[in-house]
Every structure is written in C-alpha cells, then in structure tokens.
C-alpha cells in the first residue's frame, strides 16, 4: 500500500481504467482515499460520461476531490505544460495533473508517455495504471488473473512494450509478482 499522507493526482485514463473495471474501491484502498483531480480532468470525465455512464461514480465519490486552483504558480505551470501537450483543447487534463504534481507535490498517476517524460525530467513522483495494478496485486486486492487483460492491452498499446497476450502474466511470474 502507498505509505503516508501522499495525495495522488489522477489523469483521466487511469481513473477510467479502474472505474470501468469496477476497481474504484481498490483505488481508494491503495491511495488511502486521498485522490484529487484537476478540473480539467473533471471536464474530460464529464465529457466521457455519455459513452460510459459508470464514470459518474468518480464524480460522486466524496473521497475524490476536484482541485480548482487559481493561483498564479499553478496557472503558469499549466500553461507551460500546454505548450508540450495541447492543441485544439485536447490533453488539458494532463496539464492539470502535471501542474498539481509540480506545484503541490502530489504523486502523479498518468499513462501517456510525453507527460511521463516531462514528469521524469522534472523529478516529479509519477506512476501509472500498471504501477497501481502491481501495487494492488502485492496488496492482495487484485490478482494477476483479474488484471492481465487490461495489463496486456496497456503494455501493447499505450506503453508500446513488446509483450503479447499473456505477456504480463509471464512477466509477473518471472518477477515474483504471483507469489
């Protein structure tokens, strides 16, 4: 389990993965119930509710708070990340996540690689869906069997790693995650 009073700031993608698989409760356990989302992520979730009604659970969860920061430091950080990520209004969720990670010291949860590289270069604490799934397996809240379909999909698509179907299970077995 994640130690201490760390607050996690989530991008839309990881929250969506956990919610649509019915693991929001696992997320509450893993994060100690300390999750914030920037309002730019809240906007993306509201936009996606039409396709996935289950996402409403995120907005209704009283332990997930929406950060509506308006201080100059946060806005300047948001704008700086926009330069790398945004066109036509897309990817503003990621900017809010990075800006909160940068200015509040929250642990960032994000899957897309460009923001992950930005976070890494700035030495920000950062993980993603797969990292949290592994934490959940270690904490006996999820099993490899339960998560392998999502993990395989993430490895092959979003993370561009050379693993085929069943690849995560094999990797987990080889690296002691099954024990």
């Amino acid at each position: 389990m994640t130690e201490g009073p760390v607050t996690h700031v989530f991008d839309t993608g990881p929250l969506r993965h956990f919610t649509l698989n019915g693991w929001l409760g696992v997320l509450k356990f893993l994060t100690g119930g300390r999750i914030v989302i920037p309002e730019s992520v809240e906007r993306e979730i509201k936009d996606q509710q039409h396709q996935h009604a289950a996402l409403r659970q995120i907005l209704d969860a009283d332990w997930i708070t929406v950060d509506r920061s308006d201080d100059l430091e946060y806005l300047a950080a948001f704008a700086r990340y926009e330069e790398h990520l945004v066109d036509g209004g897309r990817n503003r969720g990621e900017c809010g996540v990075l800006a909160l990670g940068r200015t509040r010291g929250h642990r960032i949860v994000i899957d897309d690689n460009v923001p992950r590289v930005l976070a890494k270069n700035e030495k920000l604490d950062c993980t993603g869906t797969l990292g949290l799934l592994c934490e959940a397996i270690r904490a006996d809240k999820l099993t490899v069997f339960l998560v392998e379909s999502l993990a395989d999909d993430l490895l092959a698509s979003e993370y561009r790693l050379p693993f085929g179907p069943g690849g995560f299970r094999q990797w987990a077995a080889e690296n002691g995650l099954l024990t």
Partner: protein
Amino acid sequence: MVNRIEGGQRKVTALELAAIADALQARMQSFFTDPAPSIVSHRSAQGLDATESAVDHLLTELAAAVEFLHGLRPIQGLATREPWEPPTSTEAVEGMAARARAEAGYGPDEPAKNLQDHLATAGLLLFSQDFGADAADAGSVLLEEGGVAIVNSAPKVGRRRLSAVHEFGHYLLADEYTVDWRTAHTGPDIEGRIDRFARAFLLPATAMASVWPRAVTANGTRTAAVTIAGSYLVDMSTLARRLQDLDLVDASTANDIRAVQTTQTDIVTHDLYPSHELEGLTQPRTYQKHVLALFEAEKISRDRALGLLGGTFTDADLPELPPRQEQEIWEYVS
C-alpha cells in the same frame, strides 16, 4: 463573473483562462511570457489603438512556436547574426544581393529555386498561407536567433517569390518587424532598395547581362522574356523592371515585356516547369523536420505536433512511435 474577474474580486481557474485563450485564438502560455523583443517593440511603437491583421496574428503565433521549438532543441540554421549595413546606393544593393545569394547557398548565376529550403540555411523560416487578395503580401519578424517570415499565397508565384526575398532583405538588415502590403514599389527609400535587392537576388546581374542579349538575338524579345521568366521563376513585371535596372532594355521594351503572357504552348515548347512554390499553406522543411524529431523524441504530444504542423500533416501522416525495449517495463510497474 467577468466584472468580478476584472475587479480583482475573483481569480480565473485554469480552464477559464484556457477558454479565454481559445476565444482570443492565442496560446495560454502567451499570458505568462513576453513575446519576442521585436514584437514587443513593434507593439509599443504601434500604440494601444492599433488593430492586429491576420498576418500580424500569424507572425506572432509562429514566432512563439519557433522560439518554443528552438528552446527544446536548437533548430538547424537559427543563430544570432550580425546585421548587415543598409545599402545606400544601387551598387551596394547589387552587392548585398550577391552576398545574400551566397549566404543562402546559391551559385552566382543559378536560378534561385526552393526559396524555403535555401533561406532556412541562412536562418529565416519562411511560411506561406492564403490571406486573400486584400491582405498584406508578406511580413517578417526577427527573433533573437533567426527569423520568421510569412508570404501571402493569394498572389501568383512570381510575386510570392519576390515578396519572400523582400522579407529576406529585411531579415538580413535585422529589421525587427515588418508587414509589407505591396512589395513592388520603386522609390528611393529603403523599401524601394529592398525591392531592388529582391529583383537582383532573383535575377543576378551577370546572368542577365549574358543571357538576355543572347536570347533576344536567337528568338526575339517575347520568347526571350518567356524563357528567362520561366527559368528564373519571376513574373513579367519583375523581369521588365530588372532589365530596366540593368539598362538592358528601354522603357518601351519593358512595357512590351510586362504585357507578355506565358501560354501553355510556351510551357511545352520551351520545356518550362511552372513553380508551385509557396502555394497555399506551406512550411519550411527544416521546421517540419524539427517538429517530427521532437514528436519522435516524445518531447511534444501527437496533438501538439499536428497543431504545429498547421494542417500540412494529417494524423495518418505522423509516424507510429517505435516499440520500447522489454526491460523498460520497470518504468511502468513501480
């Protein structure tokens, strides 16, 4: 709400500020950083009442984009440079044109083709876009390293190329910010001298002195005009004016040349290949390569890369990023 924001009783959130930027067709970052010093001094000189034209708007946008990209990784060819002395005589203009051709990588008498590629080697990134017939011909802005120029693609190719080289002249003289409404005047002022510079750049004196008389003797004035304008990719008006600059034709012959229209038969008969330079929305290859490299290095997102490529690329045109190494999984599981 706007009243409360204006009165300082309420701040704006990131999404509200983003919406304001969208409404202004500006990037959010422009609220936090000063534009290039040349744009700042231009705006100061214009005062608060000045309205911004479409060319001004795009120049500001491109200058910011180029500075952002150059800051991430230096763009090849962009560097600080010593400004050239403004020419004060026709001899000095001719000398400036010869020196500029060499700087852009052209041989002394070679037709100046592919201006975007060549001017980029001298640090000027040249873009084109159709602003319509009533807009300015061109504009340019000097950056701390290199410069950016835009040519209105509405006029025909000869005038587009003339405008492009005119802006190159401003760039070499380190003119900070210029919007040129008609790049074809002949006065004795600096704009007139830069126009002569542009003609001299496109139609080098030594080449014209040997090629023109020979072509006229062989095929007559009309065919000489068609073949030389077609080879050097200039319009008849520019050719006529240039031949007059060099005392190779009198006023009457110059008028005859201006009236010449190149026909399809001319194109086929004389093996001419009409240029499509700066037609519609175009970007310098150097700039596009740089955006692609930063996308592949994952310094900018796919959406941002497409935005910077300004509609010259579709999503399908962007490359798929290569797979990572197996051991990189550790980056994702901790």
